[in-house]
């Protein structure tokens, strides 16, 4: 795989994370615990859809085969998706959604921070723009971890279950593979493993403040970055892609 191919894959990962998590959050719209949350969750989803467009359009440009963000989002099958397993996990209850969001936001923030130093100026620009949005996402999801962890007995129990349940999907966030290494060497993106300590510090401090017990490091589920997903992704795509698949070549 040459650098350009690796960069394409790398950008798909960035775009697919935003796409799939944005999709999951958008499933909440109209079903959340309070109107304020319908607004807030939609805001985060909208930011992520915007980021999807930026990353996937850039991916399409790098690829140079005439695929734009929509073509990449709507016309790839599950094995060609490159998002982390974490973001495709079902919404579950509100605690599960917020635990997923907090784990992701805390990583996403560090990842984007690293990307602002990318030698590829378009990456650095998108990262800088996204970083501002994600700083707010992180503030919000962290706040909900605190509220639910240190709220009622029920909310504590649910939030503890959620952070336990999703823990096994966090290892993948920090594992560098060949593509990551190519990016690091080319000065295009940060070393994922270098983000782990800061992430753990934040997650640990938040859990403590939220009176939650952080799970022990254990076996990490992995595969999303190379297209080996959980069984959930296929169903997401069936809905997401229905119209583009059913009416090929139509303009909407």
């Amino acid at each position, binding site marked *: 795989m040459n650098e350009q191919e690796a960069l394409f894959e790398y950008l798909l990962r960035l775009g697919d994370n935003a796409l799939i998590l944005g*999709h999951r959050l958008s499933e909440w*719209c109209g079903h959340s*615990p309070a109107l304020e949350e319908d*607004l807030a969750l939609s805001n985060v989803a909208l930011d992520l859809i*915007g980021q999807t467009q930026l990353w996937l359009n850039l991916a399409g440009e790098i690829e140079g085969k005439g695929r734009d963000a929509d073509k990449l989002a709507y016309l790839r099958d599950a094995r060609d998706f490159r998002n982390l397993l974490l973001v495709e996990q079902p919404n579950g209850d509100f605690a599960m959604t917020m635990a997923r969001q907090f784990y992701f936001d805390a990583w996403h923030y560090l990842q984007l921070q690293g990307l602002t130093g990318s030698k590829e100026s378009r990456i650095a620009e998108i990262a800088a723009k996204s970083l501002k949005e994600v700083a707010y996402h992180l503030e919000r999801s962290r706040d909900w971890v605190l509220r639910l962890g240190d709220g009622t007995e029920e909310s504590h129990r649910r939030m503890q279950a959620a952070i336990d349940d999703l823990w096994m999907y966090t290892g993948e966030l920090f594992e560098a593979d060949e593509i990551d290494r190519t990016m690091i060497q080319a000065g295009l993106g940060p070393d994922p493993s270098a983000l782990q300590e800061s992430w753990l510090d934040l997650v640990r401090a938040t859990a403590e403040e939220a009176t939650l017990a952080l799970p022990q490091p254990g076996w990490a589920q992995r595969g999303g970055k190379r297209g080996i997903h959980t069984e959930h992704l296929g169903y997401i795509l069936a809905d997401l892609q229905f119209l583009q698949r059913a009416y090929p070549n*139509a303009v909407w």
Partner: protein
Amino acid sequence: MSPEERAFQERIDADIKIEPKEWMPEAYRKTLIRQISQHAHSEIIGMQPEGNWITRAPTLERKAILLAKVQDEAGHGLYLYCAAETLGVSRDELMEQLNSGKAKYSSIFNYPTLTWADIGAIGWLVDGAAIMNQVPLQRCSYGPYSRAMIRICKEESFHQRQGYDIMMKLARGTPEQKQMAQDALNRWWWPSLMMFGPSDADSVHSAQSMKWKIKINSNDELRQKFVDQTVPQAEYLGLTVPDPDLRWNAERGHYDFGAVDWEEFYQVIAGNGPCNRQRLRTRVKAYEEGRWVREAAEAYAAKKAARAQAKAA
């Protein structure tokens, strides 16, 4: 009429806004609460038919626009519940009324969204009719309601343009897309006309509400205005309005149109629309399943306040 009532009516006649803490007749307060909360409920329930297509929107841009629109509806609901709260009723009370089936909301949201074109038709027709109803209400006599309407109308007209844009893309698209657009117009046209409520002759409470300036135009007036505005738009799209009696009446300077099937209207109002039960259940489910979250947020806030106090002491 008591002196207070007379003074109140004089202020209204002079186009002075009534503000929350001022004296107002109980019936004015009650009517307003009913009207504002029905409107708020309609925004909230209205999130469902459109929300149904968020995960299936055909492009990223359409998805973002639709999500933002449904989000705006949540926002409108919020403004309106706040406006109602200034009249001494809490959002929780109003939501309980909605959830228990006591409160009404706009019947149009009891129809299903069956294709993507329905998202266009709702924006174009349903938001179009809503704006027609709401624009005059910007001038209504109750200050908080009037101000909420000003904000809402601004956003709604944006939504309407987006809806029309969807219709335009479909009408200029493949034969299948054009058919989809026509089909949506066929299904949403009559329910949209019903949004203005029964004919003036059959409309209760109207006279008093108009005197209080919480209703500005008559139902039939607005309906006519809507038809006059919308028919040329349909023509521009190359779509056919599903009304064989529709024709331009040069003498009146208006379109004549066929009779609305009020039997269907009353059936839907009475709970027999295609989606009444589904809409209400979805709402109740979200509300009930969110209870522990709301309780947790309150408990946390209380703990935090207590800690801050303990620290200060």
